[in-house]
């Protein structure tokens, strides 16, 4: 029995640290297990909150009111449910499961169950971090060397250890494969073989040639810097596919708390608890992610109790579900700004200003988004570093719109085209309101609905700007909390057409110059100043898009789900490892 103490001790310690045990529980379990007094004292110290505290926090993270009162008894003891299955709903399929290639937020929501970054954003914060695969991290004062201490017992799902060498190999793959989100790493690491150093089996160091204040932010992104098994890569690589991307697109071998047992990309994903997980085992035994394309069906599945979580519910349904005691609707501010791109080649500055005045701002926020959004003065959300509150926001003014459009040489009866992805009731309603506003000043707006695939093709393919629509509905949020990362792919002339996401061919030399300076900015003040200048140009002087709202997202959970913490960067994702279900 004596040898078993350390193991129990470790489990208790982890649980205590994670805030899952109260002091009283620790005391009881510690005594029952016959631990020594010093050991019990150290466990008690690890408990997050004092006994009998007003609102016991469910997790190690400061979940400032994010999750409603967790299901604890008056003594702070958790009443854990017997039902250890968690079912979430997606709105579309996830065809690419390679975390260093896939670049959409449903994929990354899945990845947070089975893959891990070195560090992750802490709680709701967008610039504080907490351990994930790395237990500790530090950097030098110059911000050119970043050291990560890995969990010593970390293992991949294939049984191979996840040591410093594996981490390095994974980052080399991420950088060298140059797929999907690789800009997240290439901005800082151009030569991964040299820049990443393995110090000892649990220590890895990233070195950058110049100070990089945003390196930690990028490394905590859910797009790309996840660690995949190099052993699996070696085993499945081919001459044509040296990084085994084809294999990783369909298989998952990470270090996360769950391993995949079934992956049907257009239908469902089933995860089971990974027994060799390096940290405290998560509450849920199984996680099922189900692809349900129809808005109405997602709501129905939540109502029938078959599904327990969904981040893709239409605003109108959210309002109804908020009144239903069977659900918690957790709303959170994001870094996402939605906008209507205006074709830079086909519309001059005056015309773009005119159209910006014709947008039904208030109606969209209040009646279409139903309050799940707020006015914004440009592409940078107020949660992102660099946001400048002094820049004014547009309001609808049809007289002014008409005047500007006339000055721009647009006549009554002219027709413009507006593209949006089919199947989205919100998009369709906005488009029709804009159409009606323009109709009032004699301008025709032709709505073009296309499948998501076709929209992607048209936006990011080789179609010349002259053949693109005048208006395209879209939106974006940064990979990490950084204004440059938000704007560069969308509005820099390097990123036009198929070279990035600048699908409206916005090319303003001044903006380009300022963005290049912003990329290497060293201080927060510098970032603020440069971002402000760029945003002012892109909103007012030479508008790039109609920036109509900073989006508020909502995740709907069954009423007994606890421990969920939303994050404005990890949009529509879940912190599976901290979540649990209360017995009711």
């Amino acid at each position: 029995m004596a040898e078993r103490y350390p193991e129990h001790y470790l489990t208790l310690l982890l649980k205590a640290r994670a805030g899952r045990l109260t002091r009283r529980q620790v005391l009881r379990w510690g005594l029952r297990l016959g631990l020594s007094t010093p050991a019990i004292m150290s466990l008690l110290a690890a408990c997050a909150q004092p006994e009998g505290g007003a609102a016991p926090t469910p997790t190690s993270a400061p979940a400032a009111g994010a999750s409603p009162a967790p299901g604890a008894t008056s003594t702070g003891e958790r009443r854990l449910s017997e039902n250890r299955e968690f079912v979430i709903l997606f709105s579309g399929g996830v065809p690419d499961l390679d975390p260093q290639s896939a670049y959409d937020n449903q994929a990354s929501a899945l990845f947070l169950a089975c893959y891990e970054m070195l560090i992750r954003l802490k709680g709701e914060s967008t610039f504080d971090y907490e351990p994930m695969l790395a237990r500790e991290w530090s950097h030098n004062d110059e911000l050119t060397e970043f050291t990560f201490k890995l969990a010593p017992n970390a293992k991949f799902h294939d049984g191979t250890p996840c040591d410093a060498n594996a981490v390095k190999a994974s980052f080399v793959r991420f950088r060298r494969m140059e797929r999907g989100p690789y800009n997240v790493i290439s901005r800082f690491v151009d030569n991964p073989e040299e820049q990443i150093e393995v110090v000892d089996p649990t220590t890895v160091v990233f070195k950058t040639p110049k100070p990089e204040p945003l390196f930690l932010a990028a490394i905590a992104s859910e797009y790309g810097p996840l660690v995949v098994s190099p052993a699996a890569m070696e085993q499945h690589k081919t001459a044509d596919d040296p990084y085994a991307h084809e294999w990783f697109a369909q298989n998952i071998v990470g270090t996360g708390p769950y391993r995949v047992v079934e992956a049907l990309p257009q239908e469902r994903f089933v995860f089971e608890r990974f027994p060799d997980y390096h940290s405290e085992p998560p509450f849920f035994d199984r996680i099922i992610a189900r692809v349900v394309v129809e808005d109405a069906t997602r709501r129905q599945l939540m109502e029938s109790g078959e599904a327990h979580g969904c981040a893709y519910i239409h605003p109108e349904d959210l309002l109804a579900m908020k009144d239903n005691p069977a659900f918690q609707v957790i709303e959170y501010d994001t870094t996402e700004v939605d906008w209507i791109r205006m074709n830079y080649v086909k519309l001059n500055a005056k015309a773009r200003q005119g159209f910006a005045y014709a947008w039904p701002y208030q109606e969209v926020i209040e009646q279409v988004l139903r309050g799940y959004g707020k006015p914004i003065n440009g592409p940078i959300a107020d949660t992102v570093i660099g946001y400048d509150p002094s820049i004014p926001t547009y309001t609808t003014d049809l007289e002014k719109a008409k005047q500007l459009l006339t000055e721009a040489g647009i006549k009554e009866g002219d027709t413009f085209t507006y593209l949006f992805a089919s199947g989205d009731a919100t998009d369709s309603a906005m488009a029709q309101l804009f159409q009606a506003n323009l109709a009032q000043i004699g301008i025709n707006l032709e709505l073009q609905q296309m499948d998501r695939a076709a929209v992607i093709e048209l936006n990011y393919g080789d179609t010349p700007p002259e053949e693109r629509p005048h208006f395209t509905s879209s939106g974006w949020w940064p990979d990490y909390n950084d204004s440059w990362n938000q704007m560069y792919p969308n509005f820099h002339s390097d990123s036009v057409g198929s070279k990035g996401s600048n699908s409206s061919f916005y090319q303003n030399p001044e903006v380009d110059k300022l963005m290049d300076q912003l990329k290497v900015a060293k201080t927060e003040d510098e970032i603020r100043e440069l971002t402000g200048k760029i945003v002012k140009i892109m909103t007012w002087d030479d508008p790039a898009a109609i920036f109509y709202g900073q989006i508020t997202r909502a995740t709907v959970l069954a009423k007994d789900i606890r421990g969920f913490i939303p994050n404005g960067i990890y949009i529509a994702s879940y912190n599976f490892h901290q979540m649990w279900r209360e017995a009711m």
Partner: protein
Amino acid sequence: MTAEPRTTEQRPLVLGLAEREVRRQGPLAWLVAFARQSPLNVLALILILLFLFLVAFGSALAPHDPVKPNIQVKLHPPSSTYWFGTDELGRDILSRVMSGAKYSLGIAFIILSIALVIGVLVGALAGYLGGLVDEVLMRVTDLFLAFPALILAMAIAATLGRNLQNVVVALTAVYWPWYARLVRGQVLAVKEREFVEAARAVGASPGRVMLRHILPNTMAPVIVQLTIDVGYAVLATAGLSFLGLGAQPPLPEWGTMIAGARTFFREAWWYISFPGLALTLTVVGFNLLGDGLRDYFDPRSRQ
């Protein structure tokens, strides 16, 4: 349902009698005779006249603007101002249903006209010329028949782009083979009959024989089939629009309206109910008319 048209009874109709009656009596008198045959025929005529009336005057008579949003009154339940309630943009659903008739029904007419022209051309050629021409044309026809209709239509509409013109192309591709087959069968049956032989004997040119003597005598079953198909074509058009492949917002096409209502139907029953009801009643009208015509033309059912 949807794009699959027939498989209703396909027995060849024995004609001539009824047709001559129409010619003798004049259309109005014939209508009266037709209506007298069954109360269902009366119902069919009423429904069809109603919807044809809406096709012509629905937009003009609509009490509110069917397209312009008025978001302050969104999802308003039926009331004395908005008899059928309003949709998510505050538009009057009654007005939208009324002006939608010309899209839902009008498109069906266009589809069937084109399908008919192609079908008659192919069927007549195949039936009249026979031999290799017949074989080739009919195998191509069979090929199109073997195509899963809705999937063919979806593929065409998705490929060419989402709008009503492409729905016309897609559904024409689905419907013409049925007419080709029907007409061919009729031509085969008629071309050996005495009056055709007689016309040939007096030296009428093949074209003249075809146009004056054969085709007119193949038309009755085609007309019956057309009547029934109007209903199916309306359903198919609405089905494609429901999938987002047909009419685009803000057009008040009924299928598009039902698709739009899907997100809101839990909170607003009226939004999904009325366009669906209009759709159903239109199709009921044409189905009843088709049945009535078949019975009327079919001497066996006139005992």
